[in-house]
């Protein structure tokens, strides 16, 4: 069993409870134990750090200090939410770089009887530990109901691969770990060109037309590639794509009906868990029609791929990718 400290963050208790539920549901199969940090607080989300640095870092610092104090959970802290992940990682890095700020934060933490030694906790994203610590092969071993025939658009959002505050686990501009993970589950992964583009974040509250345009781009591209489902790893992304889909349709006169699921939900389904066990049904754009044909192995993969196949004799050969070469 691999032990990790677990920081769910606010979203996973509310709108993204399906993410939390499915994460906990797949953990045993992967040999993961998540020990939730006792008495954790809000990470400050994306706004606070740009408003008031010191209290914002103190807020994050408290979570790091608690994680360090409860380090019998292991010195690694897993955050499934991209914003929490980024804030925790960013704070740890800044505290390491700035002894002055580290001293100030620790003065604040001392009021609550806490102390944090920068660098003593390694912050990881949930996707990162699944692909790096568990590995695709171990995931493949758990697949009992492959997602054959399900066309999945893997959507990373902007926060998990950049900026690289403490090393980087995937390409900044065109990440592929989630793609590989989805193929491992048997899904048909579409090469989703906007996979690392912005979902609009909280722009929905400030300038709705801007946010709707950003969301539209993501939905349009998924529709162009005939994706049955978009999979994501961030509560913010899921919320924007799912909850604002109707608004996009109304604003642009479109008719998108693309369910947006957390990657852990799809993992759970592939591992043979029931839709209820992984929180399917909590999404606003109903995922059930799309999931209806999972398991129909005989069903031919949809032929409507827009890209020319790679080895058409009459055309020019496509460049060979390094992975294909080594295979």
């Amino acid at each position, binding site marked *: 069993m691999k032990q990790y400290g677990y920081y769910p963050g606010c979203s996973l208790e509310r709108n993204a409870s399906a993410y939390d539920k499915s994460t906990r549901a797949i953990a045993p199969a992967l040999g993961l134990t998540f020990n939730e940090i006792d008495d954790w607080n809000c990470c400050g989300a994306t706004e606070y750090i740009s408003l008031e640095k010191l209290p914002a870092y103190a807020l994050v610092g408290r979570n790091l200090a608690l994680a360090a104090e409860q380090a019998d959970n292991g010195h690694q802290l897993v955050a499934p939410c991209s914003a929490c992940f980024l804030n925790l990682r960013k704070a740890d890095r800044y505290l390491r770089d700035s002894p002055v700020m580290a001293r100030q934060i620790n003065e604040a933490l001392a009021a609550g009887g806490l102390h944090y030694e920068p660098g003593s906790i390694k912050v990881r994203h949930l996707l990162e530990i699944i692909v790096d610590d568990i590995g695709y092969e171990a995931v493949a071993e758990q697949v009992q109901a492959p997602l054959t025939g399900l066309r999945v658009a893997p959507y990373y959002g902007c926060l998990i691969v950049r900026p690289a505050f403490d090393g980087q686990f995937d*390409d900044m501009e*065109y990440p592929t770990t989630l793609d590989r993970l989805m193929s491992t589950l048997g899904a048909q992964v579409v090469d989703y060109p*906007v996979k690392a583009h912005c979902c609009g974040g909280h722009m929905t509250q400030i300038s709705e037309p801007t946010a709707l345009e950003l969301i539209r781009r993501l939905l349009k591209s998924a529709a*162009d590639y005939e994706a049955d489902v978009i999979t994501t790893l961030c509560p913010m992304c899921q919320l924007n794509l799912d909850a604002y889909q109707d608004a996009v349709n109304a604003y642009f006169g479109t008719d998108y009906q693309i369910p947006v699921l957390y990657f852990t939900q799809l993992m759970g389904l592939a591992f043979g868990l029931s839709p209820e066990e992984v929180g399917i049904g909590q999404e606003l754009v109903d995922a059930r029609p799309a999931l209806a044909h999972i398991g129909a192995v005989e069903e031919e993969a949809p032929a409507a791929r827009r890209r020319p196949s790679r080895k058409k004799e009459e055309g*020019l050969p496509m*460049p*060979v*990718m*390094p992975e294909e070469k080594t295979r």
Partner: protein
Amino acid sequence: MNPHKSNGAKKERIGVYVCHCGSNIAGIVDVEEVSRWAGEVLADWGVVVSRDYKFMCSSLGQELIEKDIQELDLTRVVVGACSPHLHEATFRTACANGGLNPYLCEMVSLREQVSWVHTDKEAATEKAKALLAGGVARVAFHEPLDAMSVPINEATLVVGGGIAGIQAALEIADSGFPVYLVEREPSIGGHMAQFDKTFPTLDCSACILTPKMVSVGSHPNITLLTWSEVEKVDGYVGNFTATVRKRARYINIEDCTGCGICEEKCPKKVIDDVFEAGLGYRKAVYRPFPQAVPKYPVIDTENCTYFQKGKCKACEILCPTGAINFEQEDELVELKVGNIILATGYDLFDARRITQYGYGRLANVFTSLEFERLSNAAGPTDGEIVMRDGKSVPQAVGIIHCVGSRDKNYNNYCSVICCMQSLKFAHLVEERTGAEVYNFYIDMRTAFKDYDEFYQRVLHEGVHFIRGRVAEVTDAARLPGEEGKLIIQVEDTFMGEQRRIPVDMVILSAGLEPRSDSTEVAHKFGISCSHNGWFIEKHPKLDPVATMTEGIFIAGCAQGPKDIPASVAQGAAAAARVLGRIQQKELALEPVRASVIAEKCSGCRICNDLCPFNAIGFDEEQQISEINPALCQGCGTCVAACPSGAITGTQFSDRQVKAQLEGLLAFATMSSEPVAA
């Protein structure tokens, strides 16, 4: 304190010469004071004369030294001037002309180590005195040395058969001396053979290259070894032994007529990712291109059906002269040569690394080398500029400059050729397809003869130029008119706004990188690479084709990105340097060398791998290390590293270095005022 007395040296008669170097030294160091001080204070150490002069390296300056040697009977000379790298040879010659052994001269660097690096005049003057004191103390322990002389083998090894290597080989061979030209691929020609047109004149690359290739192939003085690689190099300048692996071609070349039937009949087709840059096919038995030199094909065993599955032999059955020989084996050939020219070329930057440009993912994104093949009349499409489907003609084409160059994430340097190459592409696309062409550039760099005129010409042809680094190439359509296109997202820095340009085809002008194995090759030949892998020349301006290792020269892109004219010039320059050597017949070598004191050597072999010039071997019988004096460059690494102090260097013996340190330190305890005798 007098270091000489403490070391029991005999009293030498030393002359000290302090150079102003115009204002280079004199601007910071009070040269006259230093000279006066040395003459007075160091008189006790044997200084009999001390002078300063505006330019010591001038003939008048040198004559000053020569005259003093003769008139004042000097036995040692110390020159305080620039770095010994620059003028040590000059002052040694001056000593020799004056009748003194040239190695009894010591140079003290008052420019590179003092005036150029300090601003405080007073402190700099004091430092100059201290360094000079060290030099005077040291010179007394110099030994007269005689230059070693080695014979030069007339033959030359040229590694790499691209245009630089071809030029070098032909220049030497035409002068009547033997050349071995070793090439890794089945044919010579290099990257230039892949191109269709050459900038700025747009003359056909093959038309100007193939005559040279043919000359190499038929030259009586050139032994051509293709499909071969240098495995090992022993020896030293004038007397290298190179071991070359001639890989089995599986063709008896005595019988092969180069008719090409084997290639035609071979049933196995594979993607040619070398010559065709992955854009076309070749057979398992192949010549990379019709004008290949030599004309003999090779069998690629990894793809040959017979070698993989044990049957087929179509080529053997159908060869009219019975030239196919499946039993052939690799051959090791030993070549004795006097000099070596490395012209190993470059690799193209792997455009897959910039994921946001989509190469390898988006079908109609091409690399510059792919486009060269696409536009080449002998290429996979017979020169028709079409998209990856092999038939559609693009209506709009984007050319992205600086892909992998001038980018701190990949390579900081400019790849030199990309601007001109991109202009050439723009012209060809415009001319052959009438498509709208967009160039995305950071700066246009069109230096050199007739290059900017070509840029003007392409501008007038109506090609668009957008200044800005491309953010992304995507097929995610967003706006009307983008459906089914590749969209280039870029900040137009002239307009100050983001633009999205829909095109059908994107060409990535990928940068040049050192060969992936350049550091191993450098190590094999005992030369150095820069941190990014280019071979390092002896001097970036004044000695661009020599290396720090005697007898090894470099030419072409192996030294850094350059275009065809520059590669040819370097190939010819390297040949001229080699020819100069050959014609001397003998080469005088610096006698500044390290040697092993056999009784002290424990045989630990620490020094063996440290030597950057591969000059140290191991005598198995006596179990001691041995230094080959012809290979040793006198760097002193081994001297410093030897744990038993068993290695000593002429001109940098412990005694000399200690005396220098004592001299330096003695200065600290001495007053600047003249010491009463």
